[in-house]
């Protein structure tokens, strides 16, 4: 009886040792060299695997960083400049600095400003709604309100405001990965430069119809009147297809364009409330009431909610 046990243990041990020897040589033969820096770079990355850099995940991005040997078009929007300088240190190359960006929703057509013309009864998905028709309001460019951007966000940074029916970005959480930009079938979301103290000025509209048509469907639509373009001293505003666009790289955040907009389509975010001072008098004369403008309140409310 005991001999059987001994033989069994012996045989198994010999098989085990032999297999180990074979496996050792096989492993040597088929060894794949992997740059140890890939692991180091991966460890330095945030590990969110969001795909904001354009690669399948953090590992793939680390692979690309080491493989390319330069960081010219590689940037991790989640980690930002700090992470990228860390990566550059590991690889011994120079990091490219980029301005931090954040997502903004370029539609301000709340239920009040943009009345509904029909009720969408299909699946709650912007992609489905957009594939079926132009939307539940008169504006074919505006937000559909089904929240594809909210579902696409891995960072809990964008939420629907039930009162306005529009999504709102939480600047503190947004990492500018661009998932919502891709998810929006109406291309309403844009990644814009994060100004000092998160201050932003942008045209909150994508309506490319002629002024009268745009105004008819939404009271806060950009009508392409050129007023803001004339007002801007820094050539930051351009008008194309009846729609104004503010270049966030050129914009100096002077806020001069905001009061001249006849439809309040230009939004300022995270600014302190305006004071009517003597030096601003010239602006005040030409402009419409600033403090009481309906969108001002929305903008402030937004600013408040993101501060909280």
């Amino acid at each position, binding site marked *: 009886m005991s001999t059987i046990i001994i033989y069994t243990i012996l045989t198994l041990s010999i098989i085990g040792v032999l297999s180990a020897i074979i496996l050792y040589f096989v492993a040597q033969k088929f060894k794949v060299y992997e740059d140890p820096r890939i692991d180091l770079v991966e460890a330095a990355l945030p590990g969110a695997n969001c795909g904001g850099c354009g690669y399948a995940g953090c590992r793939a991005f680390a692979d690309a960083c080491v493989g390319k040997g330069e960081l010219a078009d590689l940037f991790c929007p989640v980690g930002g400049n700090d992470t990228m300088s860390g990566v550059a240190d590991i690889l011994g190359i120079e990091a490219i600095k980029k301005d931090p960006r954040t997502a903004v929703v370029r539609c301000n057509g709340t239920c009040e400003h943009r009345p509904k*013309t*029909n009720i969408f*009864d*299909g*699946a709650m*998905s912007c*992609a*489905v709604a957009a*594939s*079926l*028709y*132009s*939307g539940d309001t008169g504006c*074919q460019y505006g937000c559909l309100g089904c929240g594809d951007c909210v579902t696409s966000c891995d960072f809990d940074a964008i939420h629907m405001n039930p009162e306005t029916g529009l999504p709102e970005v939480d600047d503190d959480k947004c990492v500018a990965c661009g998932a919502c930009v891709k998810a929006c079938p109406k291309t309403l979301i844009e990644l814009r430069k994060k100004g000092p103290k998160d201050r932003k000025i942008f045209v909150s509209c994508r309506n490319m119809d002629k002024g009268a048509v745009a105004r008819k469907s939404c009271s806060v639509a950009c009508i392409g009147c050129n007023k803001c373009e004339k007002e801007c001293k820094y050539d930051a505003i351009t008008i194309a297809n009846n729609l104004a666009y503010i270049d966030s790289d050129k914009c100096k955040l002077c806020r001069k364009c905001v009061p001249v907009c006849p439809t309040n389509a230009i939004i300022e975010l995270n600014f302190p409330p305006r004071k009517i001072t003597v030096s601003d008098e010239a602006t005040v004369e030409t402009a419409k009431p600033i403090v009481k403008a309906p969108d001002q309140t929305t903008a402030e409310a937004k600013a408040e909610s993101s501060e909280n």
Partner: protein
Amino acid sequence: MLKSFKIGGVHPAENKLSAQKAIEVLPLPKSVFIPVGQHIGAPAEAIVQKGDQVKVGQLIAKSSGFVSANIHSSVSGTVKKVETGPDTSGYPKKGIYIDVEGDIWDEKIDSSPELNSEITLDAIAILAKIQDAGIVGLGGATFPTHVKLVPPKGMKADVLLINGVECEPYLTSDHRMMLEHTEELIVGVQLLMKALNVTKAAIGIENNKPDAISKIIKIAYAHSNISVVPLKVKYPQGGEKQLIKAVTGREISSGALPISVGAVVTNIATTFAVYEAVQKNKPLFERVVTVTGKSLKNPSNFKTRIGTSIGELIEAAGGLPENCGKIINGGPMMGKAVTNTEIPVTKGTSGILMMPETEAKRGEIMPCIRCSRCVSVCPMGLEPFLLMTVSEKQIWERAESERIMDCIECGSCSYTCPANRPLLDYIRLGKGKVGTIMRNRKQ
């Protein structure tokens, strides 16, 4: 036992409210909006300008490619503007606005009601006439007919099928056409047979239209090569692939066209349009539209000029019912809800359906209970629940390998789902995405 297609299918309540109403001619509208893209393929190019005088049947937009179709004026009057106008999709589409003045027809058109059954033209001349007249599939798909009648190289048609199924509930325009224009239809069938160079034709009609079946049999009796095939009532029998399977028993492989099994299918209204184009020189500028709904005062079949707003049809049928919850362009199964009543009747408009609020609203979406009813009703043998999930999760490779492109969008799955899942909504989305991916791959 009556013939039908083998797998799947549903039987929604027929509700053919206007089946006994003879076709009425709708009074001329004050103005029309004629879109230049009323067919599958490239939109036509407008050849008239603001201020031009046009006659009924005059060419106003020229076909801009092989898969495209001519557009003719449906009224006489002055061109008001060439601009964008309302469309079922909600996105503005380009078209021609015409203010109606009188009713002056182009001299070439033979507007007499007499039957002209003498076929004098050869196949090429018939095809040319069909192309000039801008005829497209009037069942709803609006595929240019002249393209369908010219098989691709190496393929040959041996049978012509006429689709008199009208399986969509509520719609009766083809049914009335079969009863009121039977002789013309038979001439149309002969013309199509000559154009295609085939020796036999079959007209498939569901047996919920016994009057149409007996009338067509009576007249087709004189022509031994035209047979009438009564079919069991089942939706979506009017689908090309389903009709071919039901009538001939031939099965079309995945991704292939009906011509691959030697069959060409045209719809009843299209066949009538072919008769008018070839024998009467009349381009396609009017069609029969069913205006119907349970609470509508007077459900009717109207012979309508293309470009008339659907609002006028609704007025003519007794006005918008108070409890109307949804206006549908087409039938209840495959039609599209519209967002306003200014949209024009186009070549593809087979019906306008007003659904009461109680029926129009979709039920609350619940989780899938894996009952597999959608699988058993799918006439293409697909798994709708799976296609929906992969589309929702955006797994396009899987969607393609599960043959999402075979879906004919009949809506049987959504109709039958006890959990009210929006199956077709997502499948259609997936089809769009996968279609784009496949096209990009080919380039």
